[in-house]
């Protein structure tokens, strides 16, 4: 039990942390499956094979988007907390509290959409939430739900930041500046996952701040305190919040790649200069690309458009050359133990890069003028999410439930892993082709010429569904053991 650093958790606290984080991941996974069914419904509608009607389509779309983002985020927050808690010392009580708040918030979002009829899309772009054809109570429910989710996320960020500062001492050390500038230090240096988590915490706090600036005037308007406010400013705050939040999810997921891949390759991700540099750059770069959501708002001051294009190009570079090339280096010639987590990570690298490249194309203002708000956009973020952010998180979840020797290496698990990759791949490629065909996103009705690609997508979604159900069945059997498992020695994760 040596190796307890800083204010690391006791063994008992650590076990409670592990239970809490397991709940985060399992609930996130369950939400993912349910929201996936809603996704299937939407693609069936696009194929022209079912008719939900516009009201239900848009409610479902709104719930699918917000539910997926929240569910995947919850799971990766749990995974990362589990990885970093031994040294950073996250309190189990805080994790459970945040979970309850998160859960209540999500419940409100579900009620607001399915019962209340709220359907302004997951982005809820002002002034649509207050001008829709649904009751104001639904808007209240939805936005309060978002607020609770944001509060829970903020709690997580604050806890991580405070814990990291205490463990590593000061911002410089916490951000691995000794490694960056080649200085000696007495203090421990953060590992990759710890640094990634800290970066997410810092930018997460900024994003939530923007979310508050976005939501407060809307609440004020609903209370009759103001009659309205600037839509351009609102949109800037909205996407500073929303875009940054979903972008941060991938960095959480990257922390989980660091924590998983080593176990199957016998190699470890070293905290070195490139990792330190990349994550320090990300702190700033991740805040810039959101401007690409406003390229078609011609009244936005033009330098901001150019910053958006710069940020969209730049943000991927550190990630690619550190995490992606680094992971491929871990795999190459490692006599890897092929298993569901490794396959998910490999597929995740594929989708993350494909989605990233698609984003660079669409992040080019000249191209965006004909691609904006086509299905190219969901194509990009589904690649990035389904393979990357979510895929990496499920890799870690399966690893947690299976261990290096467990069911994850069974032929069934491996086959299901490949099946998922094929299903998700076909599904996103159909989306990309639809985007090239100028099919608009967020349309409840598709004209005949657009339906073909929807029809192509459906079988792939079904493959995806089968793969996840299979993995669920395999994984569930391992849950009781994972719940009871004694806490491993603190620090064993680095």
């Amino acid at each position, binding site marked *: 039990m040596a190796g307890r650093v800083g204010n690391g958790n006791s063994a008992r606290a650590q076990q409670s942390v592990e239970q809490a984080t397991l709940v985060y991941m399992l609930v996130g996974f369950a939400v993912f499956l349910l929201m996936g069914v809603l996704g299937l419904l939407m693609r069936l509608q696009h194929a022209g094979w079912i008719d939900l009607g*516009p009201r239900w389509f848009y409610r479902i779309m709104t719930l699918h988007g917000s539910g997926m983002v929240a569910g995947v985020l919850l799971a990766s927050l749990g995974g990362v907390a589990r990885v970093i808690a031994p040294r950073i010392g996250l309190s189990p009580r805080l994790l459970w509290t945040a979970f309850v708040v998160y859960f209540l918030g999500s419940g409100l979002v579900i009620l607001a959409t399915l019962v209340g009829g709220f359907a302004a899309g997951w982005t809820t772009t002002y002034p*649509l939430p207050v001008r829709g054809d649904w009751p104001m109570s639904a808007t209240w429910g939805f936005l309060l739900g978002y607020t609770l989710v944001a509060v829970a996320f903020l709690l997580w960020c604050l806890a991580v930041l405070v814990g990291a500062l205490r463990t590593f001492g000061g911002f410089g050390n916490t951000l691995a500046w000794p490694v960056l500038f080649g200085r000696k230090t007495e203090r421990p240096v953060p590992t990759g996952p710890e640094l990634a988590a800290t970066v997410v915490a810092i930018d997460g706090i900024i994003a939530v701040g923007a979310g508050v600036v976005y939501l407060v005037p809307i609440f004020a308007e609903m209370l009759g305190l103001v009659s309205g406010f600037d839509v351009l400013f609102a949109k800037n705050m909205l996407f500073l919040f929303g875009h940054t939040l979903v972008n941060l999810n991938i960095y959480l997921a990257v922390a989980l790649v660091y924590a998983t891949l080593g176990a199957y390759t016998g190699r470890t991700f070293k905290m070195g200069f490139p990792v330190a540099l990349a994550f320090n750059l990300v702190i700033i770069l991740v805040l810039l690309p959101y401007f690409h959501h406003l390229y078609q*708002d*011609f009244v936005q001051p033009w330098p901001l458009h150019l910053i958006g294009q710069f940020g969209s190009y730049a943000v991927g*570079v550190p990630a690619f050359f550190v995490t992606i*090339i680094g992971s491929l280096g871990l795999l*190459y010639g490692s006599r890897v133990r092929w298993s569901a987590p490794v396959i998910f990570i490999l597929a995740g690298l594929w989708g993350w890069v494909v989605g990233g490249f698609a984003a660079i194309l669409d992040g080019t203002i000249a*191209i965006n003028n004909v691609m904006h*708000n086509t299905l190219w956009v969901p194509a990009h973020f589904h690649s990035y999410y389904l393979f990357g952010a979510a895929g990496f998180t499920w890799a870690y979840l399966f690893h947690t439930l299976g261990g290096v020797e467990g069911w994850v290496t069974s032929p069934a698990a491996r086959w299901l892993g490949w099946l998922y990759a094929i299903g998700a791949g076909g599904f996103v490629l159909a989306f990309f082709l639809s985007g090239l065909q*100028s099919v608009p996103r967020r349309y409840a009705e598709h004209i005949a010429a657009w339906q073909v690609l929807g029809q192509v997508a459906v079988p792939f979604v079904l493959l995806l569904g089968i793969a996840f159900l299979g993995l669920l069945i395999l994984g569930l059997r391992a849950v009781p053991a994972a719940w009871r498992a004694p806490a491993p020695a603190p620090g064993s994760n680095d």
Partner: protein
Amino acid sequence: MQPALRSGVGRLDRRSVGAQGEAPVALGGRARGGEGVASLSPRGLAAVGSLHYHCSNTTEYQNDILSGVVLRVRRAAEGGVMQVGVGVVFFIFVVLWTGALWWIATRAALTAPYERVSAVVSRLRRWGALIVVVVLGAAFILSLPFLPYPTSRAARLGSPQVTVEVTGRMWAWELSQKTIPRGQTVEFVVRALDVNHGFGIYAPDGRIVTQVQAMPGYTNRLLYRFDEPGTYTIRCLEFCATGHHLMVAEFTVE
């Protein structure tokens, strides 16, 4: 000055025939009709970095003397050329990246000392990052002349000769005129009455040629020149709730 610039755009189209060939046909039959818009093709190509920009002050686009065959080929090439350019670049990238990962996967189960792999990783990081930064930097600069904003478009197309007032509201478009002369620079003055809408223009062949947001409290100006006659469709491209997909209108270019 302006005629020269405009004819420069016209010239480029003909060049793009050679550069693009039958590409649109290859990409899922999107070349239907092929009512391309002249000014789009050089933008699309240059934005993906595959065509050099040349200005020349030869004939006006309208006065082009092209045989029927060449015209048809050119129109096919223009049909969705921005989207085709993006598609080609994207799918080449996907194939290369899939191949690279496949190659790594087949070698993951072999044995290679990690020191050697690490050395390669370091070199890849150093040189790869340098190359990517240079390529992205070049793409950034090359894309700048093709911004869709009014000053940039006016420089390419000439200042507007026709003004069309556009108003979006839940869930309809109102246009001050429904016919637009071809070959003239049009300025759409776009407003919204209630929530954000997206003023998206679809060519007769079904592809988006340009768009701008319609925002309450703001006026956005969109410049464009239609060189192909036909019926163009306006679709709302910003989600505006229940009737979003019904927010369709048409105008003709003659």
